[in-house]
């Protein structure tokens, strides 16, 4: 069991000073709009990932009346108490201390795993392929530590190769092949590795996501995932490499004209289908949200299978667009999931919570302050 027991927030977003205690299972953060519900989730996320899910700039996170922000969380992991303290001052390096020991932010990452779902995640369905590639890359890096290194090397080869392609226009074909081949070789072997890891992660995600999606829709709808590759990959690794190589050879002329690499995993996409139709084009807002949530919850299930433990789940404003049935299914999932969860909501969900038999805590937020904390013991 892994959970956040308490949190101290100083100078973060609209919070000046706030001490909070949490339920090891379910925590409902309620309050009107623009009071600080998401900011609270963001601070929890930051403690785990040393990054916000809303902005890349740490400066924005500091309260405008304060010189710095300071977060302290007490996490329990395998029954052991861990204190995490993070402070950030403008133009200074971020300080992360775990149990009074200074650690680098990269070493800290993934030590206290967390999964967030926010309204922006619907972009995963609606936007272009790059956001889905980023999602895949993140998931694959979690599954295979090598993936991240391979991806970095691949991007480097790509840069070098594209630069070379721009200089080749008008040269003889023998010389062109001679110059390109050494780069092709690394591109193909790294690229094929990337494709295969992605295909593997997609299979896992699909399996878990399907269960969640079908539950949410009372089995009336179904989701499937497909890797849309610019190289037709094969089950056999060496065959994928061969196909990739042939595709590159065929694309020579176009590549030189365009001055860039036109096949490879940097152009691929994750196709998300609802009832067999491309969800990007043919789906309602509610379906998109359900599909995006399914991917995130698949991530949770996957993590649980691999580590035998649950990540903390943050759900930002998840109830606003779902009907009663979907809300119930989601709460059921969270109950069965057995990990800790934080849900922010601007609408009352008391009637829903009545019907699930687990204890939870409600925290009301008003203008960057928490008030009237209510705990309810389980039935």
């Amino acid at each position, binding site marked *: 069991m892994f959970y956040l027991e308490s949190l101290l927030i100083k100078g973060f977003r609209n919070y000046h000073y706030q001490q909070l205690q949490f339920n090891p299972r379910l925590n409902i953060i309620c309050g009107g709009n623009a009071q600080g519900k998401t900011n609270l989730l963001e601070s929890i996320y930051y403690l785990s990932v040393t990054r916000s899910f809303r902005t890349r700039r740490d400066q924005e996170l500091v309260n405008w009346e304060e010189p710095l922000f300071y977060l302290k969380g007490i996490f329990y992991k395998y029954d052991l108490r861990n204190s995490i303290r993070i402070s950030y001052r403008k133009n200074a390096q971020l300080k992360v201390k775990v149990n009074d020991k200074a650690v680098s932010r990269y070493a800290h990452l993934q030590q206290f795993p967390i999964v967030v779902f926010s309204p922006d995640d619907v972009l995963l369905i609606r936007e272009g392929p790059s956001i889905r590639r980023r999602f895949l890359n993140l998931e694959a890096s979690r599954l295979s*530590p*090598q993936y991240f*290194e391979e991806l970095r*090397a691949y991007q*480097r*080869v790509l*840069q*070098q*190769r594209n*630069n*070379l392609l721009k*200089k080749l226009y008008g040269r003889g074909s023998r010389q062109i092949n*001679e*110059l390109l*081949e*050494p*780069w092709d*070789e*690394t591109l193909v072997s790294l690229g094929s590795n990337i494709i295969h890891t992605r295909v593997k992660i997609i299979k896992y995600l699909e399996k878990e996501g399907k269960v969640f999606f079908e539950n949410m829709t009372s089995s009336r709808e179904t989701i499937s995932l497909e890797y849309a590759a610019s190289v037709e990959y094969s089950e056999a690794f060496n065959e994928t490499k061969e196909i990739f190589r042939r595709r590159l050879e065929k694309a020579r002329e176009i590549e030189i004209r365009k001055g860039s690499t036109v096949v490879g995993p940097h152009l691929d996409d994750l196709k998300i289908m609802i009832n067999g139709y491309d969800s990007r084009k043919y789906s309602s807002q509610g379906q998109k949200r359900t599909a995006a949530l399914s991917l995130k919850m698949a991530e949770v299930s996957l993590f649980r299978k691999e580590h035998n433990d649950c990540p903390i789940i943050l759900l930002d404003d998840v109830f606003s667009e779902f009907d009663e049935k979907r809300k119930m299914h989601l709460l059921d999932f969270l109950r069965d999931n057995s990990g800790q969860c934080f849900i922010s909501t601007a609408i009352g969900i008391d009637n829903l919570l009545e019907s699930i038999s687990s204890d939870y805590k409600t925290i009301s937020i008003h203008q960057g302050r928490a008030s009237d904390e209510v705990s309810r013991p389980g039935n």
Partner: protein
Amino acid sequence: MVYPGHLKKLVEALTRFPGIGQKSAQRIAFYLLGCSREDVVAIARAMVDAKDKLGFCQTCGSLAETDLCIYCSDSKRDNNLLCVVQEPRDVLVLERTGQYSGLYHVLHGALSPLDGIGPEELKLDRLVSRIRESEIREVIIATNPNVEGDATAGYLARLLNPLSVRVTRIAFGLPVGGDIEYADDLTLSRALDGRRVI
């Protein structure tokens, strides 16, 4: 910060050294001021002399005090074996092993279109004609194990293929005397790829 003019100039000059920042430069500057004049002149002379007297070998491109480096002019070395490296300092590292007794060829870089370095810049045609005119039977490619070094190795392998020489790539893997548990993932996986029968 207000400095006397000559100190400022010295500190400024010293910060050009790799790995030397403002603070280290100041320390070195004050050290020099504390030295006797003879010592400072000797240090300065050592720099100027190194610059004046050291050049690159006409044949292999490693550091040399005459037209030919000490490796190329040494008749005891194995002239069937040639090791291709990226930088002159790589030669020193290989020499330190005491293991290698063949000849060298320094490329002075690796293929990197982003930096405008192609086969012409590395003067690879000179490498080819050198091999053609010599008794070299094996070429060991010891470029760095990164994207650019690997591409250079791949290019060389193709280029040297028509010549009747054996082309090998230096092995990658675990540091000797270390523990497997401390190896990073990529090194370990390359070491697995490069395993061999014992």
